[in-house]
């Protein structure tokens, strides 16, 4: 992640003059234009088709999938989705939801505190502290599976929800702090100072002024964290052995092993697992793009 911390510029600003914006395209020939559209449409189909096929295959019978993989289900059987749900998908879903919610909350809170402390307050050793936080962005989780196993065992949180919550939080605090800090650096301090002069404490100022002001970046940080926690696999595979605690990515892979001949059930399970994040992303798209562009600086 880049460490040049510019004042964030607004993203997705609507162009002042659409004609000027499209400038260079004007000269293109019509044929080239049509070809481009066709190419882009073909790409979109190639991207989305497998996912639609997955959802549809959940409604087919095993025989249909093998004899006519491209066809539509002759008699859509919603029962498969219900079966997949009861086969364990519900449990995995709840585990994932719990771990994701907890780590999103923790990462946003802890990173917002840290970013506030590191931008607005006089803290002893603030430069080394900042370096320590931002430098951790370069360290990646999977390389230390062996010592992490020992550490979690020593802390008695191996094979509990805490193992995942704590690790998902710790490994994303650096990046999230970076995002929030970059955002705060671009914001004026006058309102905070006014609040302090009016007698608000630092703590009150943080909650009543800074948090509402930083909402856009906090929302996108939360989305990124949700995406990460919901989909993380390596930690969930190594640090959780109890089947009842498994999260979706690992649970589904297990299920695929168990159901190696019942493809419709597996596809139904995969569709159920994929849907929440797709929906959340589609709903929160604008925030997401905006937050990313602000967080990444210029």
């Amino acid at each position, binding site marked *: *992640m880049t460490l040049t911390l510019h004042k964030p510029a607004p993203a997705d600003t609507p162009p002042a003059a659409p004609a000027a914006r499209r400038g260079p395209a004007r000269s293109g020939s019509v044929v080239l234009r049509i070809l481009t559209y066709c190419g882009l449409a073909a790409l979109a189909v190639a991207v989305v088709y497998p996912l639609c096929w997955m959802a549809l295959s959940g409604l087919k019978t095993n025989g249909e999938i093998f004899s006519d993989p491209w066809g539509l289900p002759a008699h859509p059987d919603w029962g498969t989705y219900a079966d997949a749900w009861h086969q364990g998908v519900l449990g995995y879903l709840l585990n994932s939801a719990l771990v994701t919610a907890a780590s999103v909350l923790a990462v946003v809170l802890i990173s917002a505190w840290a970013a506030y402390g590191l931008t607005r307050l006089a803290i002893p050793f603030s430069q080394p502290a900042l370096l*320590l936080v931002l430098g951790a962005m370069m360290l990646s989780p*999977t390389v230390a599976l062996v010592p992490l196993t020992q*550490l979690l065992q020593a802390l008695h949180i191996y094979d509990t929800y805490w193992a995942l919550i704590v690790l998902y939080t710790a490994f994303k605090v650096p990046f999230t702090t970076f995002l929030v800090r970059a955002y705060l650096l671009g914001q004026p301090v006058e309102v905070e100072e006014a609040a302090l002069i009016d007698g608000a404490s630092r703590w009150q100022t943080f909650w009543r002024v800074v948090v509402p002001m930083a909402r856009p970046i906090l929302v996108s940080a939360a989305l990124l964290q949700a995406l990460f926690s919901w989909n993380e*696999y390596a930690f969930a595979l190594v640090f959780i052995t109890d089947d009842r605690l498994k999260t979706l990515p690992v649970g589904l892979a297990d299920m695929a092993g168990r159901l190696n001949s019942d493809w419709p059930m597996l596809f139904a399970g995969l569709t159920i697992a994929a849907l929440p994040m797709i929906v959340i992303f589609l709903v929160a798209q604008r925030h997401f793009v905006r937050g990313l562009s602000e967080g990444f600086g210029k």
Partner: protein
Amino acid sequence: MQRRRFRHALYAAPALALIALFVYYPIVENIRLSLFKFSVFQPGMRYVGLENYRQALQDPVFWKALANNLCYAVTSVVFQVGAALVLAAILEAVIGQRLRGLLRTVYFIPAAVSMTVAGLLFQFLYQPDAGLINSALDTLGLGRFAHDWLGDPDTSVWGVINMSQWQSFGYTTMLLTVAVQRIPRELYEAATVDGAGRIRTFFAVTVPMVREMTTLLVILTVSGAFLVFNEVMVMTGGGPSNSSQTLGTWLYASAFTGDDMGYAAAIGTVMFAITFVAGAVQLLHSRRKAVAA
């Protein structure tokens, strides 16, 4: 005064404590552990110095894994940075605002799907008998190319890499579109006035103007490619006969299947060194930029 400064430090304390304990300490401890031979089932650790690293140098699977990570890195840079930048430029230049947003969203959707879901789905697409890819080849009269993609040691790792491109290029396209949108319009107008064609304009204006974002993405993609784990585990488990093993999955196999914890730690240290260098290059690069600016 001093008291207040220390009270302020409490804001940063939880972050620092978490990072120190769960990020920095394990990395350092990992380097120490890589100098020992030990097993989960037997007490005691035997100091062996650099023996684990020598074992890696002589381990054909280690080299295969490293080569696979390299293939992964090169392919990902070509598609997720190169092709994604061309796509972002096309989306910006040719397409109207509303359609552009829609396409960008569509291309991003796979990134919201977990690697496990995508991996299992592609496992079926690659299926030798009924998989969509082979049956599409049949329909197009290219049946002679159909084969067991993931089951063949020559193609297994490419099957995994291909899936990962499908999943990730929309994400980088989105980031690059954001970068392209920030290029001042005047530059494009000037290029048009100078009579530059579209391809000229792309190389003369777009590429240099988004360099900061592409540098960042190259480094993220390269480190990501050296940490690849999930998709390999789900799709091939590193097989057949270790043909699709990567450093991450070989670490896992050495630690938790082979019970050679010290060796696994040594592989981890190699991965750490590679990604650390990638990160350091990035840091220095952006420092220089910041000073120049």
